[in-house]
């Protein structure tokens, strides 16, 4: 088994702790069938792929993708970028990804010029892909807040993410603030789909012509309907790339791969 990136430096007060869904992402991307698909698409194709994760949390998924780029994409050069609405998650991700890359390089015994050369461009505080240049993303990863909830928590403002604001908080204010940021990591509003739907709508604009997106869904999100909707918009393909945890005959979690139809 490929090593899971270290997240021991991450404080889970406001950040989602890697769980079953995160690990399903790791297993799916590195599964023989999925890496075969990705290697065919990205191994020899220049320029190098830009891999973006929206809502990185601890950064465990992006770090794994960067560190294992040889296994997943069949190439050792890769550029990563992470976004999250929580500034603390951005700081955590930056460290998780750089550490995973460094540890993988140190574990490799091959000469320096054939070692992994993944580079983490940065982690930025942003709502999904709203700050990214249209058409720039080759691989988009999204483990959404997918739990159905009565209300969708509002997005934090720039000021709420200012480190000065957090430092000035009382204990009870900090507790409330932490609970709010944590709710952003799981609460998905109606059908658990409100945030995911926004991302799905962004996909055609944000992906490059060779781009592919991986989106995790739970049973209550009705994956079959989502797949049908993507396919019905014309020019787009969707397939289940990985699944876990059968419950009464149903898959509890699935990861859907979404990509442009090949017109060549």
């Amino acid at each position: 088994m490929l090593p899971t990136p270290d997240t021991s430096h991450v404080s889970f007060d406001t950040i989602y702790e890697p769980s079953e869904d995160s690990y399903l992402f790791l297993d799916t991307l590195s599964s023989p069938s999925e890496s075969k698909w990705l290697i065919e698409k990205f191994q020899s194709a220049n320029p190098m792929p830009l891999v973006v994760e929206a809502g990185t949390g601890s950064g465990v998924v992006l770090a794994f993708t960067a560190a294992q780029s040889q296994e997943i994409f069949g190439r050792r050069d890769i550029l990563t970028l992470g976004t999250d609405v929580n500034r603390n998650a951005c700081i955590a991700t930056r460290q998780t990804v750089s550490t995973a890359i460094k540890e993988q390089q140190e574990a490799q015994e091959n000469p320096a010029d054939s070692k992994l050369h993944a580079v983490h461009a940065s982690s930025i505080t942003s709502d999904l892909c709203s700050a990214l240049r249209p058409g720039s993303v080759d691989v988009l990863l999204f483990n959404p807040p997918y739990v159905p909830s009565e209300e969708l928590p509002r997005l934090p403002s720039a000021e709420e993410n200012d480190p000065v604001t957090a430092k000035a908080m009382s204990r009870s204010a900090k507790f409330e603030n932490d609970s709010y940021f944590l709710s952003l990591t799981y609460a998905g509003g109606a059908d658990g789909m409100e945030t995911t739907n926004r991302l799905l709508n962004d996909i055609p604009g944000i992906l490059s012509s060779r781009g592919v997106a991986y989106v995790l869904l739970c049973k209550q999100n009705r994956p079959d309907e989502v797949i049908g909707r993507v396919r019905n918009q014309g020019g787009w393909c969707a397939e289940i790339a990985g699944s876990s945890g059968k419950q009464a005959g149903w898959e509890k979690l699935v990861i859907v791969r979404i990509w442009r139809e090949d017109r060549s």
Partner: protein
Amino acid sequence: MKVITANFVTCSVKECKTSPSAFPLHFHDAELEMQELDFQPEFIRNVLPRIDWEALRVTANELGFPSLPESKPEGEALDDEQTLKDLHRLLLETQVMEGRLICGNCSHEYVLKEGIANFLLPSHLV
């Protein structure tokens, strides 16, 4: 935030996405830090095709780097180690730690603190 990031980000305001003046965002009061990274010429060669050269020239200029050539290095120029080393230094080793990124279209300012840029909008712009 590595300088290469500036080539992939733009203003978060929806209406700015179609405006050519919203890209690249403009650095103001940038504080830089150098973080050494193994030089791999192949990485620079493979990343160059996806760099918007005009935008990078603007960024390099705003960060106080020597002017980049007018056109993107191609062909034999990619064998020149110094050219690749200079780009490696600018794109991957230079980190913007503090400062502001300003949209040329709507003038909104995004603040960078401790290397993390904040692209969230105030509620009246969402």
